[in-house]
């Protein structure tokens, strides 16, 4: 009897994979990939022990570097037969531990699959392997005046397969959408070894929109082997307005006022004073260091259109009490204004031993409430927090600064983060806007969803992966874990998981 036949994915408990036959697994894998593509020694495995969330570490049994779809299918077939967990991994830049290895399973790296298979400038599509870097697609499309719109801050390194797994966003998604709006088709392999094509170069397919389910599924449904992305015309020109405010609430109100004026900026970002103070020495972006908050508001399109829109933006920002306004004079200055925003994470790393990046999304109108609450939490936990927001879509990236070597700071940081996420849900938002749940926000999921909703997610997973082998334990917590977490949302006085044992 193979190991999988007695294994079934369920909602109640995380599965135990303690019975995986390691020697049998390694021998079977060695038969389907070249020796150099199978890593089994501790030293070789070490670089894979974490992704961009380095606070979580786990060494896997082995790492397989797949070179083609055939190898992916063969590896999945073996893991399915032997009941071994599989964690797919792209560039490893994820910030929620989505690619954190499973101790009883393998990491399936797709980093070697990095060919752009086909780029059709007339149809405006590119067909690429999952390991292709986000920015590499836009670079390849640039000679045709086209680009791939989603631009996560890590776009220089992150891969499209990972973007699909996380439904990655970026600073321009208010106008141009997320990964889910810019991917036409995903080809992948299920853990049962079936090749599936979700979506199409035609704009829709018969049946359910499985592409929408796949995007943002954090590697729990299938392993991506090919992605067809939409390419869009590069705007002729873009300019950015930088506005200073002496009060964060006014800056938050200005965000709402811009939308109310019927303007959809290409990008609309906010940084608070500690954030500009952190990045300015790093990039010399020319930020107003006296401002309590600055907004970066971008317009793109034809030169006439941009001229008109910049004028409207300026009027709204002035009406909202901006204390200073600068408009980028040329492309170099525009990029300089953005450089500071894009460098916020490394800058946090420069001024603090460690930082913890949050990712809640809230309705725009609550930005001021959230900022005031965070200021209170800084006092409560005795930690500093710098705030960078994708203000246009209400997506917050507070960076909590801490030092893991100081006893108790990590724990306080995690409690601080949990408070921010709980407040995000309470304000009508979500615990994760674009970084994913991964291994990190399982507790937040218990706050945001009740047991029946979580059970539905588990049934969705089982529809693709009945044995529960793809990235087990991530993204959707088991009910048992929520019961243990103990901080779950108590709705109208009802206990959410009355049937589950507590510790």
């Amino acid at each position: 009897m193979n190991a999988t036949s007695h294994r079934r994915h369920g909602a109640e408990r995380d599965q135990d994979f303690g019975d995986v036959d390691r020697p049998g697994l390694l021998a079977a894998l060695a038969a389907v990939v070249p020796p150099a593509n199978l890593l089994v020694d501790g030293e070789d495995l070490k670089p894979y022990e974490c992704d961009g969330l380095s606070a979580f570490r786990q060494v896997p049994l082995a790492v397989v570097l797949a070179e083609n779809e055939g190898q992916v299918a063969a590896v999945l077939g073996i893991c399915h037969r032997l009941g071994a967990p599989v964690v797919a991994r792209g560039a490893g830049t994820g910030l929620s531990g989505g690619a954190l290895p499973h101790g009883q399973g393998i990491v399936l790296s797709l980093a070697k699959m990095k060919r752009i298979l086909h780029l059709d400038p007339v149809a405006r599509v590119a067909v690429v392997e999952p390991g292709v870097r986000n920015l590499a697609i836009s670079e390849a499309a640039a000679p045709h005046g086209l680009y791939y719109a989603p631009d996560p801050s890590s776009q220089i390194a992150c891969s499209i397969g990972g973007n699909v797994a996380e439904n990655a966003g970026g600073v321009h998604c208010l106008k141009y959408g997320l990964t889910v709006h810019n991917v036409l088709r995903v080809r992948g392999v299920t853990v049962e070894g079936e090749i599936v094509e979700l979506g199409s170069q035609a704009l829709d397919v018969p049946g359910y929109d499985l592409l929408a389910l796949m995007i943002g599924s954090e590697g729990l449904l299938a392993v991506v082997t090919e992605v067809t992305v939409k390419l869009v015309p590069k705007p002729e020109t873009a300019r950015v307005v930088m506005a200073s405010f002496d009060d964060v609430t006014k800056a938050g109100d200005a965000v709402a006022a811009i939308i109310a004026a019927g303007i959809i900026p290409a990008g609309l970002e906010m940084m608070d004073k500690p954030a500009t103070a952190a990045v300015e020495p790093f990039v010399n972006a020319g930020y107003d260091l006296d401002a309590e908050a600055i907004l970066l508001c971008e317009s793109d399109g034809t030169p006439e259109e941009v001229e008109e829109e910049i004028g409207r933006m300026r009027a709204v920002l002035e009406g909202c009490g901006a204390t200073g306004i600068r408009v980028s004079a040329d492309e170099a200055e525009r990029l300089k204004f953005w450089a500071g925003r894009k460098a916020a994470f490394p800058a946090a790393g420069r001024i603090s031993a460690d930082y913890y990046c949050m990712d809640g999304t809230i309705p725009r109108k609550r930005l001021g409430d959230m900022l005031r609450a965070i200021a209170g939490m800084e006092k409560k936990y005795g930690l500093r927090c710098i705030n960078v927001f994708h203000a246009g879509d209400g997506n917050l990236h507070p960076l909590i600064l801490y030092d893991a070597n100081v006893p108790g700071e990590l724990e306080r940081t995690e409690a601080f983060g949990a408070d921010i996420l709980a407040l995000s849900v309470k304000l009508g938002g979500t615990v994760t806007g674009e970084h994913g749940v991964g291994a990190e926000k399982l507790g937040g999921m218990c706050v945001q969803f009740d047991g029946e909703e979580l059970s539905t997610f588990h049934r969705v997973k089982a529809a693709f992966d009945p044995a529960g082998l793809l990235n087990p334990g991530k993204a959707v917590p088991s009910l048992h874990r929520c019961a243990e977490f103990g901080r779950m949302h108590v709705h109208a006085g009802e206990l959410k998981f009355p049937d589950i044992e507590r510790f």
Partner: protein
Amino acid sequence: MDAAAQFAERIRAADGGERALRLRGGGSKDFYGGALVGEVLDTREHRGIVAYEPTELVITARCGTPLAEIEAALAAQGQCLPFEPPHFGAGASLATVGGVVAAGLSGPRRAAVGAVRDFVLGVQLLDGVARRLTFGGQVMKNVAGYDVSRLMAGSLGTLGLILEVSLKVLPRPVAEATLRFDLPQAQAIEAMNAWAGQPLPISATCWQDGVLTVRLSGARAAVAAACRKLGGDLVDEGAAFWEALRQQRLDFFAGGEILQRLALPSVAPPLDLPGAQLIEWGGSQRWWRGDAAAARQAASRAGGHATSFRGGDKSAGVFQPLPAPLMQIHRRLKAAFDPRGVFNPGRLYPDLST
């Protein structure tokens, strides 16, 4: 007892056979999809806009809210549903927002801005055992859990009864202009694809009988610049034309023979099918009157699929059959949401519940 609680009771009392439920709003899209089976559950009792704040770019409404009511509320604030969903109904069969999402049909602006699914942010639904579940929310960016909300778009009520839905909305374009060009089909397809690769504010296209009609929407300066660049003849009654296209009131759509909808890569060359065709969405959506087998064969060869959209014999199934691994996932998903098969049996695929 509120309407949603009554719906839940109906669902609990239903089964997958004689007592299956046929979820129905205004019935404006009764013609669409497979068999109409089961006792009607009329969603219109559960209606009303729950929340609409223009600065949040989101509207939340109960399933039975008339689409017209939502569009009027948005228009009063200078906003719109950018995907221009067709109503198709009138009088007693007014389209409802629940039906818009369940049918998943989008209008002329689809190729430019996206489909229904691209604007669904959250849903509240009753599943097949009457569990009340909420997925997604009212914010633009949300990756907590699988995107069940978007899965509902186009699921034809086979997974759950949508109680409430939150949709992203956008400002109405400041300026619009409609241009006409005399062009044979092959050149029209080439032109639509070439223009779509340039930064032009094209929001809709329609080719029929040697005439390509193009709509431009956006900032005044952008629309004016594009008019100068593209040339063609400026059309005065543009808005009326696009509304007629959206509601399929153009002469092309009159007549009883079965109407096929072919979804193709936009660059697919003219199809070798007899009779007239109407092309939308920059070449991606093509309409033709004729039998399902010929439409499916032509669509498959061109890299797309065909749907028997309206009229005619539905015995061959309305939607193109799926490859076996995908059909298996469909059956498992159906079972995950509706294990007893109570919702709309046969509306999507006849053998969805096993």
